[in-house]
């Protein structure tokens, strides 16, 4: 990669696979279970978190030398809250229906452990460019899992992808439904998201034995 040095690209690529915030660090599970019943919601959530964490990391990194360490958590909260409000307002303005589906979970990005975790662990100790890459990478790792879970849940639970009826029409009985196929209602319930997530973790760890803890 010409644009990024090897170290920098590692910052982005590592959280996508071997250091994924959801499957390895097991952070941000709550929103991953709650909003992944539809692929579209997952994608929007992923983009929101990328925006918040990317910008937030840079802001915190720029301020890292002037924040008194006693009140750093509060400063971090203010930064992330401001960013989340912006994201929330943008969503409400341009895609009101979707913001209703995501409901409280956009606001709850504030409490997403991944964000505070990256502020604390990375942005407070590194420069803005590196922090930006780290933020994008971690948020993308989070988003990737969200999108995988959302893909399976929407496909198997509703028979659609992004709202398109890819498996046929369940009422008109076309496509797969003509053969007697039915949507799996369990997929729309949160417990199934946990199981899908578990299967992803299972597959990842069986492919990379180094990740297995005793």
């Amino acid at each position: 990669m010409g644009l990024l040095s090897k170290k920098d690209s590692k910052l982005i690529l590592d959280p996508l696979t071997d250091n994924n915030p959801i499957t390895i660090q097991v952070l941000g599970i709550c929103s991953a279970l709650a909003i992944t019943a539809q692929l579209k919601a997952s994608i929007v959530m992923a983009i929101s978190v990328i925006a918040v964490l990317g910008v937030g990391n840079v802001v915190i990194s720029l301020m890292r030398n002037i924040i008194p360490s006693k009140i750093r958590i509060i400063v971090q909260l203010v930064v992330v809250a401001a960013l989340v409000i912006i994201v929330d307002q943008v969503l409400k303005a341009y895609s009101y229906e979707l913001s209703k589906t995501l409901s409280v979970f956009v606001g709850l990005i504030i409490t997403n452990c991944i964000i505070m975790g990256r502020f604390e662990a990375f942005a407070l100790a590194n420069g803005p460019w590196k922090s930006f890459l780290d933020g994008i990478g971690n948020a993308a790792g989070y988003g990737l899992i969200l999108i995988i879970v959302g893909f399976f849940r929407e496909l198997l639970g509703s028979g659609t992808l992004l709202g398109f009826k890819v498996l046929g029409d369940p009422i008109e009985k076309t496509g797969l439904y003509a053969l007697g196929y039915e949507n799996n209602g369990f997929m729309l319930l949160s417990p199934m998201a946990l199981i899908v997530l578990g299967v992803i973790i299972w597959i990842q760890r069986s492919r990379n034995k180094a990740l297995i803890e005793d």
Partner: protein
Amino acid sequence: MSLKSNLHSLKEKYKGTKMAPAFNALHTFLYTPNDTTHNGTHIKSADDLKRTMNTVIMAMIPCLIFGMFNAGYQHNLAVGDIQAVTSGFFSSEFWTLDNFMIGFWKIIPLVIVSYGVGLGVEFLFAVIKNHEVEEGYLVTGMLVPLIVPIDIPLWMLAVAVIFGVVIGKEVFGGTGMNILNPALTIRAFLFFAYPTWMSGDKVWVEGAVQRTNDIAAGANLDAISGETILGSLAQGKEMAYSVSDMFYGFIPGSIGETSTLLIILGGLFLIFTKIGSWRIMLSSALGAIVMGLIFNQVVSAGIITESSKFYTLMSTPFWQHLILGGFAFGVVFMATDPVTASQTNKGKWYYGFLIGFISILIRIFNPAYPEGVMLAILLMNVFAPTIDHYVIQGNIKQRLKRLKVKTA
């Protein structure tokens, strides 16, 4: 060469290869192998895992056969070809070849799919993880067809079996390591994934769904339907069956769960062969009776009146809850699963009592899940290790106290 030596040489041929566990399992399933272990201390007993499993299956066979007759009987009754039974358990209207054949052709495919898919998954995991095939699925495979509605599509059953065996059992390490009863995991999956096929008034009578579709397509037929007693009671309807019908099992329901008489016989067989725990069976029944009595008292004290939506189920006499729905079947064949139940004798009393208690509670207060026994057993499966922990800790404390008294 006999089949046995053929199997043996097959096994020898594949020794050390990836497929070895599969051939091993086939050989030892059919015959006792000739090769014996020579060193170490061994306990010789007639009961191995396979014999334990086979005993449970034998106890379930009467329920299976009865289920076949009952499937045909419910169908013919709903269509109007025959009259309802009048003369007790051996009524001639019930035990006809016609009834049997209708059920036979519906249930045998369910059994084949259940065993085929389930054992397929077990073999696959044994080959991948390179361990011997475990016999744990033998009982599950027979339980599954007995606890589903007659008209369940075969592919749904296959999907549920794959889910139940993989997520319910293999991820925890296979037979003996599972937290939840696999058969109930499979049923719970079906229940939440495909609720239209697991409840309502169309799935319990063979052909009812098909007929509804035919009518929708323009066929000139009468619709048939049949609801489980619990389903209709939950909607506040009158009880449409006599107590003897419920006890003998001439009622709609999942395939093998209807006949309380045969389940009790199976249960006695399990107790006699010391496979099933009488403590769990007895304490579950006690739990259900206590809960039923409490609700009966609530009704007779006038706290709940007929205007309440819980009235019909609450006012059902407590002893009738024992012969309604899948309670007896669940308690005898699934609560007693030695892997997922409590292991300590004292723990078994708590475990069973709570199963009975919670089953009736769910039955009455949640009309969406009229059969509470499935959820009650799954819930208590989760708590069984905790119960055991406290029983053991209690025992340790008691003994320590005794020790202190002596030393003091």
